[in-house]
């Protein structure tokens, strides 16, 4: 029973992770994919922090007299991981914006259709990128 109590926490976290994961692979909207990705990662972070948790332990900042602290290492790892995930999100969103501008949609399947259509055409795709050209002049 205590066993279940002790693991229950993990299981909820797993549920959260999977919720995020599900959003990523099931949703067609790119923005939502990114949101799902962030959910997925954020939940994974909870898993780490749970690993480092020591019941009855202090926040890992040294104070006279106390000797039981939570494990600082997972905290450090997750600090790094959070930064990584926000960077990824930023890049992903930036790409989405450009996709919106060039495809004028952010729905996966529509983009797919456009791409396939373009496969048949023989024309080079430069004119898809007035942005590029303008900027070349600048």
């Amino acid at each position, binding site marked *: 029973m205590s066993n279940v109590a002790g693991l229950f926490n993990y299981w909820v976290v797993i549920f959260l992770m999977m919720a995020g994961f599900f959003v990523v692979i099931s949703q067609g909207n790119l923005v939502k994919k990114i949101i799902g*990705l962030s959910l997925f990662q954020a939940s994974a972070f909870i898993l780490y922090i749970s*690993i480092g948790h020591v019941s009855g332990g202090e926040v890992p900042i040294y104070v006279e007299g106390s000797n039981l602290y939570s494990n600082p290492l997972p905290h450090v790892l997750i600090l*790094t991981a959070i930064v990584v995930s926000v960077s990824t999100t930023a890049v*992903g969103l930036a*790409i*989405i914006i450009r996709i919106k501008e060039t495809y004028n949609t952010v729905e996966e399947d529509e983009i797919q259709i456009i791409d396939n259509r373009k496969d048949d055409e023989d024309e*080079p795709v430069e004119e898809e990128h007035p942005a590029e050209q303008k900027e070349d002049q600048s």
Partner: protein
Amino acid sequence: MSVVDHLPILIIIIPLIAAPLCVLFDSAKVSWLLALAACIFSFIGSIKLLNTITASGPISYSLGGWQPPWGIEYRLDLLSIILLLLLTSIASLVVLFARYSVEQEISKNRIVPFYATLLLAIAGLSGICISGDVFNLFVFLEISSIASYTLISLGKDRRALNAAFKYLVMGTIGATFILIGIGFLYMQTGTLNMQDLSERLPSLYDNRTIRAGFAFLTVGICLKLALFPLHLWLPNAYAYAPSVVSAFLAATATKVAVYMLLRFLLTVFDFNFSLNTMPLDVILIALGSVAIVSSSLVAIFQVNLKRLLAYSSIAQLGYISLSIGLASKLGIASAIIHLFNHALMKGALFLALGAMIYKVGGAELKHCQGMLKRMPLTSLAIIIGGLSLIGIPGTAGFISKWYMINASLEAGLWPLALLILFGSLLAIIYVWKMVEAITLQPSTSTATAPLTRDEAPLTMLVPIWALVIANIYYGINTELTVSLAQRAANILVGGY
């Protein structure tokens, strides 16, 4: 400590630092020179390290002066140095090639950040190959990944954006899986250092957490490796990225993923657990086989040569994972050999296509017409590269095939030998599609390209031909590749 003792960190940190320097100077020319200098430095450094390692065994370097497992350790063994040599040499050549290709393909105001990002990608990948700490590996994996997403998104064709995004999503999922895997390992061992893990894990092989961790690491890495069902991100990413990027990534990125796989399967875990206790060997063989056949078949029907090569890359990764799945010293060795040789071929081919795009303006079959007359050297490079891809004797590809087939025969799995050969058969077809388009004169009515000679500039030809010659050299003299690979395999497989 002399500078030489610091080489392990220097070969990583120099390209890393070069990136912000590019941004500071903010000049295309300077960035190019900086990048070139940094890569060449790392290359020379790696050669130096190779000598040290072959002479006196693995090197360990404690960062921040904190000895492992408390601090982060850099650990170089033969496998790492093979990868580093590959990375730095290819990187140097690619950057040398980049000069004009980038000027043409990438708008002015992006050239500087482009070089900076390329440097980060290079450093990130190198960092993966040298790190002895699983979490540090993750961090550098992310550096290289984010850099790669960006570089791919720079492609002129808008499909590059979509490809980059796909890659970003898949890659991040993979990374998160790896993160979870690492978490599980940490949960049961309390350490992140590879050596430390390898000492502590054997007693825990029956532990379900460890097994789950193993599974997540493998899946995560296979996503990066584009192993068959997880390969969907690769073709477009390589096809629509700027030429330089395709060349660099095709030659190195997936190879580093293979490195990670080997590192985790054989160093962090050990041979018997990974490939005997766990059913991974069967899975690798099965997926590898499917990858070889299916991707080669798809490759045959491509008209965009970069896409064709991308699919061929997936097939080649199939060969590699299949050889690993053979679960024998010879198998691992041949995987490493092919890893090395395939980088050479694909590097050469993609660079050659880059030169072609630079001059002709595209890499589709229709652009090939009259290539032989127009850019003979480039065409010849493509032909030789293609032959190497097939595995014609006298090229590096033949050596790979020889060892992989030997390995599968040794394992008593002659059907696999047949399969590998069948793969080369398909390779003949798709390679010959290119060669025919390039060599045979088009019926003059359809000849679009002027048949005046118009060869790519020297800074492009030199790297291309350096790789072509490497393809032939390592097809005839295999002392370096084979002996190193076999030694590395012995170390990895260890007791077995």
